[in-house]
């Protein structure tokens, strides 16, 4: 408690000092990174703009140079034309000369015999030695300084053979004997030859022997206005010394420069105007950056699609021979199409980062200064806070110790310690006000001390009285509790006994109920047995009567059959009689026939009569035989029927006797079962009465048990209350005993 207050005040002071410092540092940090990013973006765009401008400047310089050279070529052509004209009319003489014509593209040699070309009668002889002057061409060179060549038409196809020139080969001889084929090796028509063949003048860029020229070609016509050859003047494009120096002198940053490489065909990727580290004609096509990317090829590809005044950019890491480590290079690329020049301005990004680095370091300094000043102010705040805390906490600690003594119940010591303080500080005076005034003055802390003292005194007297009363209360409550517990035990015993009785009664009641149910079932079964037997008996009576009728019917049938048998016998005797008569008749007819035969002719008619009689007798006999047969069958059927009926009658009679016996037995059963029923009923009645009695007992016992339980519960409640009282009294006594009072 003592330490907590001090810590709280100190912590508050610390936070008051720390919070503004931290906020300031945060703001400084955020601002630093924002400013740094903005500056970096601005510088990057500035760098790009500057190199774009440089590339465009170089492009415009080239454009200006190109215009200038074009004009020069035009004027050179006019001079050359004048010189040719003054030399005389061109003509092909009848004399021939042998040539070994060399294709300027493929270097293949063709032997050709051509007529000599003369100017004003002077033959232009082949001359490859630069030391020996050639007519016309050297004259032109002497006057205007450009290159000049005279061509002769080699064949009808239009191939043009150089017969006099100022252009040197690699071996430093005049490039005489080479020719421009009308069709290039890839099959396309040569633009120069095709234009000249139409009788027009060609202006433009042309590849001559081994270099590019800004050139003009004009046809040479003989007296008949027929093309016999052509005149060439030109200025070598890459030898424009002023332009080259202008381009190479440009610096970008510290080491960035502008340089030019070729864009297409032979000069693709080849250095035209070198920067530092490259030389004229170096092949850069396969150059790679440190990641292995073919950056020159990439730049050329980008450049070839650019239009006038458009600039593309390329960035890559590169390490030149002079560099200690790879550096990031930004390249601005422009394409000057008339000369097939790719102008590249490169800048090393690190050289433009100086300003940004300076800014960042100053921002960083600002940040660290802020940190230091924040720490200083915090230390000062802490020192001041600790001093003030001491001033506030010392009197509060004293009062706290007195209060703690009171809390422990040591009122005696508390009173003494207050008295001690007053005497110790005021030199024997017993006034507490004096003590407070001496140490603290008359502020809130002093008033607090006085109040504490008054409170201590009052408490002292109160606690003494309470102690006395509480001891008496404890003894009384203990007695009450003991009495209540005794009573509760008694009630519980009673409850248990009642419960046992209830359970027993319930069992009796349940058993008698079950028995009652069983007896009811038995009675019902006896009743149904009796009724079943009764219905069986009446059925049997009906059966007996039927059987008797059957016996009578059988007897009647038998007597009828006997009558039939008698009649049949009668019929039989009649039939026998008929048979005899028929026999007699037959015999008679036989004798008659014999007698008639004896009578001869007189007996003829008689014999016919005799024959007829015999036939009738025969038919009668046959019919009689049939009747006899039928009678025989009938008789046997009737006698079988009689026997059958006799047997049946006998059986029926036996059955009747059986049925009579069964009927008698059933009678006995019925009478016995009917005698049973009233006995069952009396048993049943007794049972019911018993069950009701048991149930009443059970109910009464349950009521008794409930009231016993209620009594026990109330006693328990009472007991608990007594215990609570006892506990409270004890607690009071304990509490009070903690206080050490002045007796």
């Amino acid at each position, binding site marked *: 408690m003592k330490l907590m207050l001090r810590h709280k005040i100190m912590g508050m002071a610390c936070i008051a000092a720390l919070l503004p410092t931290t906020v300031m540092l945060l703001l400084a940090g955020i601002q630093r990174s924002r400013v740094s990013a903005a500056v970096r973006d601005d510088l990057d765009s500035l760098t790009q703009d500057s190199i774009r401008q440089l590339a465009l400047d170089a492009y415009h310089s080239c454009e200006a140079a190109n215009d200038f050279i074009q004009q020069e070529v035009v004027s050179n052509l006019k001079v050359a034309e004048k010189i040719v004209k003054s030399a005389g009319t061109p003509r092909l003489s009848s004399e021939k000369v042998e040539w070994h014509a060399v294709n300027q593209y493929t270097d293949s040699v063709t032997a050709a015999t051509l007529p000599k070309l003369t100017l004003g009668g002077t033959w232009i002889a082949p001359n490859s030695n630069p030391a020996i002057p050639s007519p016309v061409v050297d004259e032109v060179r002497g006057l205007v300084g450009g290159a000049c060549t005279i061509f002769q038409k080699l064949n009808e196809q239009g191939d043009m053979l150089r017969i006099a020139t100022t252009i040197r080969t690699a071996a430093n001889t005049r490039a005489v004997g080479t020719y421009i084929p009308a069709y290039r090796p890839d099959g396309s028509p040569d633009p120069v030859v095709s234009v000249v063949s139409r009788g027009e003048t060609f202006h433009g860029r042309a590849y001559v022997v081994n270099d590019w020229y800004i050139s003009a070609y004009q046809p040479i016509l003989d007296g008949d206005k027929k093309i016999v050859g052509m005149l060439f003047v030109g200025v070598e494009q890459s030898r424009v010394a002023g332009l080259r120096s202008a381009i190479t002198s440009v610096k970008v940053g510290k080491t960035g420069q502008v340089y030019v490489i070729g864009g297409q065909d032979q000069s693709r990727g080849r250095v035209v105007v070198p920067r530092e580290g490259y030389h004229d004609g170096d092949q850069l096509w396969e150059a790679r950056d440190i990641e292995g990317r073919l950056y020159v090829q990439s730049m050329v590809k980008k450049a070839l699609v650019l239009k006038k005044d458009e600039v593309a950019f390329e960035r890559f890491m590169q390490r030149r021979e002079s560099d200690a480590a790879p550096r990031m290079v930004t390249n601005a690329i422009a394409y000057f199409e008339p000369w097939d020049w790719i102008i590249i301005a490169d800048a090393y990004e690190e050289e433009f980062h100086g300003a940004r680095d300076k800014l960042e370091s100053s921002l960083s300094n600002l940040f660290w200064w802020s940190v230091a000043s924040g720490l200083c102010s915090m230390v000062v705040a802490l020192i001041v806070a600790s001093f003030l805390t001491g001033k506030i906490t010392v009197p509060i600690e004293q009062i706290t110790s007195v209060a703690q003594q009171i809390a422990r119940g040591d009122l005696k010591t508390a009173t003494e310690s207050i008295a001690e303080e007053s005497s110790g500080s005021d030199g024997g005076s017993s006034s507490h006000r004096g003590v407070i005034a001496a140490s603290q003055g008359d502020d809130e802390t002093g008033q607090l001390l006085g109040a504490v003292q008054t409170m201590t005194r009052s408490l002292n007297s109160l606690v003494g009285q309470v102690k006395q009363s509480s001891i008496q209360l404890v003894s009384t409550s203990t007695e009450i509790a003991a009495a209540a517990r005794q009573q509760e035990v008694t009630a519980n015993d009673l409850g248990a006994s009642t419960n046992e009785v209830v359970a027993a009664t319930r069992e009796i009641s349940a058993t008698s109920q079950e028995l009652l149910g069983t007896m009811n079932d038995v009675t019902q079964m006896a009743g149904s047995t009796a009724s079943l037997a009764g219905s069986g008996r009446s059925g049997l009576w009906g059966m007996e009567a039927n059987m008797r009728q059957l016996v009578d019917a059988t007897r009647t049938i038998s007597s009828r059959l006997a009558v039939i048998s008698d009649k049949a016998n009668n019929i039989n005797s009649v039939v026998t009689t008929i048979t005899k008569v028929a026999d007699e008749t037959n015999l008679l007819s036989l004798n008659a*026939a014999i007698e008639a*035969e004896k009578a001869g002719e007189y007996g003829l008619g008689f014999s016919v009569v005799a024959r007829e009689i015999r036939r009738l007798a025969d038919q009668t006999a046959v019919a009689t035989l049939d009747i006899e047969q039928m009678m025989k069958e009938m008789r046997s059927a009737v006698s079988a029927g009689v026997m059958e009926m006799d047997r049946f009658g006998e059986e029926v009679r036996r059955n009747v006797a059986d049925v009579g016996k069964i009927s008698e037995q059933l009678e006995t059963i019925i009478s016995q079962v009917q005698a049973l029923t009233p006995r069952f009923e009396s048993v049943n009645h007794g049972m019911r009465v018993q069950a009701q009695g048991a149930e009443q007992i059970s109910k009464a016992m349950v009521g008794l048990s409930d009231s016993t339980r209620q009594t026990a519960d109330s006693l328990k409640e009472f007991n608990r209350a007594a215990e609570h009282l006892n506990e409270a009294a004890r607690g009071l006594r304990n509490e009070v005993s903690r206080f050490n009072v002045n007796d």
Partner: protein
Amino acid sequence: MLMLIFRLGEDRYALETSQVVEIVPSLVLRKLPHAPDHLAGVFNYRGSIVPVIDLRRIMQDRPCESCLSTRILLVRLAGGEGPSRIVGLRAERMTETLKVSDGDLVDPGIALKEAPYLGKIINDPQGMIQCIRMEDILPRSTMDRLSPETGVRP
């Protein structure tokens, strides 16, 4: 000529009627002691004693069945050189007569010494009928015993 048809068992036979006196029903005969088997007995015919020969006994060695149609045929026999006398012949199913001409009689071409009484044969649609010669029907010994003195006077 008129033939009387009768049967002995299943076989049919025929007798000429010219010598027939009368046909009478079979009667109870008076048996004669020590008489041969074929002499069935005697009976009183209009005052005279007539012997009766059982034809089935002679031909098939067994007596005739006793039926209504079993009758006795009285014939007049010329007893050798003595006067003729009446003899009864008993046969079965004696109920029919048949008119035949001489062309209907066929000679079988067989003569048996043991049965000299067998004559020609009639071909009838119901089968063959054997004719019997009355004169030869009785064995000679029997004929001799039938003396004319005991016979009937004509």
